[in-house]
Structures are given as C-alpha cells and as structure tokens.
C-alpha cells in the first residue's frame, strides 16, 4: 500500500531524473582532435567544415645552422599556398602551389569513420588522403623525350587517429609515395613510410605538436632522413598559427616523406610556420536537413 502512495510523490520530486530517463542516445562525435588540418607538415584527420574554405600559407626558412649571416635561415624563404574546401562532414578537396620544385598539388581527404560514443561506439577516426603533385620545373634534359607524366608523383595515406582526452590526441599514418620519374635507376619509385603524430593541449588556445615519418627499410631510407617536426599551434579566433621546427624543407608528401635530407643532430633544422585562416563561404552546414548529421557514420 505504502508503495503506491509514495510513488507519485517520488516522481514529482525528481523531475530531473525523469528527464534523464527520457533522454535518447545520440551520436556523440568527438571533435577537434587537432586544431587544424595539418599536424606539422603532414595531414591531420581534421577537415574544414562543410562550406568552409581554408587558406593555408606555409613558410619554411633555410637551415638554422647557416648562422647569423643568413639570420639562421630566415633569408631563404620557401612557401606553399593552399586552399582546402569542405564539401561534407566527411570529404574535402584541396589545391596548392609550392615554390619547391615549382610544384602544384591537389588532394582529396575522406573520413571513413568518425570517433564517437552514444548510439554507436567507434574508438578512432579513420581518414584517407590521396594527393597528386606535379613538378613544373623546366626539363633538365631537352635531348630526351620528356613526358608530362614524368612530372607527377602521387601519395596515399591512411590517417588513424584517436582523441584520447581533451588534451591528448594521437595519429598514425601509413604512407605510400610514388614518383613516376626518379633521378637515378637506383632510387625507388615507390617509397613506404609510417608516420606518427600527436598533440598535447597546453591551454584552450595553444597545443604542442610532434610528427615523425619513419621510412621503411629501402634505398630511400638509406640515403634520406626520416622527417621529424615539432610545432606549436596558437589559435586566435579564425586563425591558427603553427610555428614549427623541422628537418624537412618541402611541404608536400613527395618532399617531406621521401626527400628529407636534413639531420637534426647537425643542426639542419628549418624554422617555419603554417598560417591557417577559415572563410565561411556557404552556410550549408546549417541548412542541412534536420537529422542529416545523424547519419550512421
């Protein structure tokens, strides 16, 4: 008897408990594993939101061990300018131009899985990046038949990332670079590497990043260096500044994965920065029909 009498009373007192019971499970996506689309040189799993255009201006200066005469490399500036555009929460396209090798590049980044809890539990975010690079340098040897395809290299990466906590994210990137033409017959057309990157958030707006690409045993691994980079991301509203030190000069995969020749221990270190700026060019992400983001990814 007492049971029936007290039931309604209890229910009245704990409306919040009742509200919690009513709650349905949703897709609780993890977000912002990294501040921006690059960890240091290489891609992170982040892509611009749908309808957002991201401009990325990257500079790599000369080696710091050139000393005061070159102001520790600052006299030599190399740059890449790029644009990336988010087509959906899972897809972005990008283009860029780098003065190193007069290279044009273009890529597609696709998120295949998104880290989430709630309705579904997926512990990682999985993305794929495929890019193509065209070096438009004048032909070195005009006497032979030069094909346009000789200018091209390709790279394919899988990005496997997990945001372990609010502060710490980790990413693995198995990478393959294919060059259609290499300088000597000894060199590999295909270069395989495994990259690892991480970020640690120092404060809401500042993170410490590191990235390493390990070349799998090969002629390339014997003659070139593994790329090691550290950087700091500083976010100010719509900008992210990435200040970095790296032993790689190039900013495209065919360069920093397969063509790094600087050695940290010799001081062959380049100071550089990436400046990312977002422009919201279409507010389609808001106009997406209700439930659109609920798709079972």
């Amino acid at each position, binding site marked *: 008897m007492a049971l029936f009498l007290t039931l309604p009373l209890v229910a009245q007192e704990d*409306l919040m408990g009742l509200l919690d019971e*009513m709650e349905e499970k949703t897709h609780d996506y993890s977000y912002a594993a990294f501040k921006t689309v690059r960890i240091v040189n290489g891609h992170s799993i982040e892509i611009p939101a749908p309808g957002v255009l991201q401009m990325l201006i990257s500079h790599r200066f000369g080696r710091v061990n050139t000393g005061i005469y070159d102001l520790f490399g600052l006299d030599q500036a190399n740059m890449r300018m790029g644009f990336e555009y988010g087509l959906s929460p899972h897809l972005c396209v990008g283009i860029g131009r780098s003065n190193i090798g007069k290279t044009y590049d273009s890529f597609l980044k696709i998120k295949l899985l998104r880290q989430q809890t709630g309705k579904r539990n997926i512990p990682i975010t999985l993305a794929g990046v495929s890019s193509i690079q065209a070096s438009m340098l004048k032909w070195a040897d005009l006497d032979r038949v030069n094909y346009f395809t000789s200018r091209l290299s390709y790279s394919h990466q899988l990005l496997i990332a997990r945001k372990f906590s609010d502060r710490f994210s980790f990413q693995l990137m198995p990478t393959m670079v294919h060059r259609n033409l290499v300088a000597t017959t000894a060199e590999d057309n295909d270069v395989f590497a495994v990259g690892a990157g991480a970020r640690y958030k120092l404060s809401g707006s500042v993170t410490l990043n590191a990235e390493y690409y390990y070349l799998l045993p090969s002629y390339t691994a014997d003659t070139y260096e593994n790329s090691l980079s550290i950087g700091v991301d500083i976010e100010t509203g719509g900008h992210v500044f990435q200040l970095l030190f790296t032993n790689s000069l190039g900013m495209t995969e065919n360069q920093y994965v397969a063509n790094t020749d600087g050695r940290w221990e010799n001081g062959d270190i380049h100071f550089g920065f990436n400046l990312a700026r977002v422009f*919201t060019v279409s507010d389609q992400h808001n106009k997406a029909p209700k439930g659109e983001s609920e798709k079972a990814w």
Partner: protein
Amino acid sequence: MFRILLALALILTASGTAHAQKFFTKTGHVSFFSDTQMEDIKAYTHQGAVILNTQTGDVVFSVLMKGFQFEKALMQEHFNEKYVESDKFPKATFTGKITNLAAVKFTQNGTYNATVQGDMNLHGVSKNITTQGKVVVENGKIILKADFPLTIADYNIQIPAAVRDNIAKVVACNVDVTLLPMP
C-alpha cells in the same frame, strides 16, 4: 482481500496519474545571442528537454551543449571545445519553480505572466536565477516563453583576450518550448 487491494491500487494509481499533471517536450527551442560591435553570434537548439509539473509548479530544463547550432562551424567548435567544454560538462540544466502558481490557470486557455526561480547549472557552476516569463495555455498544450540574461563570467567560462571584443559579457538567452501532457 486481494481483489480489494487490487481495486485500491487501481484507484490510487488512476487518481495518481490524473493529478500528476506533468507536461513535457524533448524538442524545445532554446537560443542565445551575443551582440558586440565586432560581430553577432547566434546559436540555437531544438533539443531542449523540459518537464513541468503544473500541480507544484516545478519545472526542469536540460539542454545538450553539443546540440547548439551556430552560423559558423568554427564558432561551434570553439564554443564546445574552449568555452563551455562540452566533453566535461555536456549539459546545461535548470531546476526551478513557478513561484506565482496561483496566477497561472493551466486548465484555462490564456496567456499568463509567470515568475520562475531556480538553479541554473552551466559549465559546472550552479547559480540561482529569477526571471519573468509567459505561460500560454492552448487547448491542452502549454507554451513556456522566457528571455533572460546570462553573465558568462558567473559560470567560470574563460574568454581568451584575443576574442574578448567578439563575445559579449552578457548573452541574451531565449526559451520557447511547447509542452504536451506526459503519457
């Protein structure tokens, strides 16, 4: 004996439901607006969950922070990641009471002024607030409307110096929810 007990139980539960006048929604509209000289920031959600007990005047709100939609994706990311820290504090809640219950006739169509007092819990900080609102009773539905200010600093939300001019110190919040009888 068993029959009497059963009958009693039925009567009690039946009368219980008849009197437990609870109204609810899971799709309540909640929005806020930050107005500065630099920019206007607006966000809304249709995922506000509300229960109102018309007998006692008790009212509870629960809003998922990640449900707020902003004009710009980056604002949304910063809101969740840096300001309200949605992973740590996923919800904002309000537990309160309509204090002038006598003035609100939930059984009669009409618009009534109501005073609501209670605890707002946001970003892990609880604060007692009082606000004026309207209760509209319309053919068995109850619509609650209220506008109230929230001072960001009250809730221990840190705004970095770089964007201090872009985000208002006091944001205007709006609640507009339509409640249906709870089954």
